[in-house]
């Protein structure tokens, strides 16, 4: 299954912020974690992650610092900030509403399966 690219883009911010709540991380590890969490079904273009991270940094949702790994590799690490947590909370509320609405609709069987299953 391929997830629509608009949906991937919309879910990217809460995903990244949610992963950073688990602890400080860097681009490659964040990408891997998404892969793991979605069991490979959410396909990201890896390169797109970085402009997104920079946007979150500009908005003050994450803070960044350069660190050197044990193998001597310089990596930019990202950590979530207070306002990042607040933004994540807000996103969670919004996604919950969307989820619940769709869930109610689809479980209730009010829509014929063909509308969304056929195409």
């Amino acid at each position: 299954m391929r997830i629509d690219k608009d949906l991937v883009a919309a879910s990217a911010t809460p995903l990244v912020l949610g992963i950073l709540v688990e602890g400080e991380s860097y681009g490659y590890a964040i990408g891997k974690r998404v892969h793991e969490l979605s069991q490979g079904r959410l396909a990201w273009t890896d390169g797109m992650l970085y402009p997104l991270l920079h946007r979150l940094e500009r908005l003050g949702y994450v803070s960044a610092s350069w660190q050197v790994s044990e193998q001597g590799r310089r990596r930019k690490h990202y950590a979530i900030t207070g306002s990042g947590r607040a933004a994540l909370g807000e996103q969670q509320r919004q996604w919950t509403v969307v989820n619940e609405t769709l869930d109610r609709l689809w479980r209730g069987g009010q829509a014929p399966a063909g509308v969304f299953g056929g195409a």
Partner: protein
Amino acid sequence: MTTDLDQQIGLWRGHVERRRAISARDVDEMEAHLRDQVNDLLAVGLDDDEAFLVAVKRLGNLDAVSQEFAHEHTERLWKQLVTSEEAAPRPSPDLWVAIALAIGAAVVVRLAIALLSPERVALNASVLVLPFVTGYFAYKRRPSGVTVAAVAAAYAGSALVLNLYPFEVDGSTIVIAAGHAAAALWLLGVGVAYAGGRWRSHRRRMDFIRFTGEIIVYYALLALGGGVLVALCAGAFAAADITIDDILAETVLPCGAAGAVVVAAWLVEAKQSVIENIAPVLTKVFTPLTVVMLTAVAAAFIASPDVLEVDRSLLLVMDLILVLVVGLVLYALSARDRSEPPGLFDALQLGLIVLALLVDALVAVAMVGRVAEWGWSANKATALGLNVVLLVNLVWSAWLSWGFLRHRRGITALERWQTSYLTGYAAWAVGVTLVVPPLFGFA
């Protein structure tokens, strides 16, 4: 990892670095990603070439990625626009438009000199020249009809006010009005056109601040070159016993000065990468020097306070110093890499602001007592008002900058404050142009 792979990654790096919307630091970050990915792929049994190809493929289409970067870092956006990889080096029509507009500005100024008194020409200088710069950006940005109408109205309104007010020719309100009208038109005419009508956008405003700083540098360079050329020319003719002073004073200098504004605007747009390396250097050089200068001034004022009581022009000098400090802050801010953490230079800049505030406080205390004694004049009222406008900016900037140094706040807060404050400058300039001359009887 083998040397062969290192070589391949090196080649990839070079290829990515050519995308100028992606900075070297961004490439560092992506290279680390690439190497992590390659290592993981090697670990599951792929060979070097395969691992590299898969890793590069997963990073995605470079065009799309670099467009995303350019989108996020609009200050780099122009690079994306001017350096599409296959673009052939053919002369762009922009140059011809700029040259035509520069000639237009020169002709209008020459006509004004022929028809009007020198004072009138000086008073109307901004109304005569700035429309051509505005026109260039109207051509480049294609703003909406509403924006064009609003900008045209600003110029028409200024022309009416400047020429209908019954100024005394050798008074001081005429100078004040001319200067403040120019500042107002720079922001409301050129600025709005530069932003393509999106003048509310903080990013566009920051771009305009950067543009203003850069056009000053270019204009200074052009003026220097032009000055040398004119002096040589005058010298050559003088040696041949031909006097051309009138031609120089009435045609060459004013027309050159007017045309150079348009040319400088074009240069900033077209040759941005040249100056981009100069702007941060200039700030880094002049911020410490200004700190030294202000320390000396503050020490002198404290050591002999009676200096403060003598000189009435001190207030004006103080305003100029504050303008310089605000300019340095803006320039540093506009050239700053947003992702860099606070460092020594930011501390130095806070020191600069605090010193300027200290010197200004010393002068203000001395002045307040004196103003009553001298009475109010247009110059003093304007200078004092401008001082307050700049002071408010710097006090709050110092506070925000302090927060940034203590990691309490991002640099964005300071940026937003400065870009928001542009509206304050515009309001102040319009207000002074309209109110001060009648208030002081156009003297």
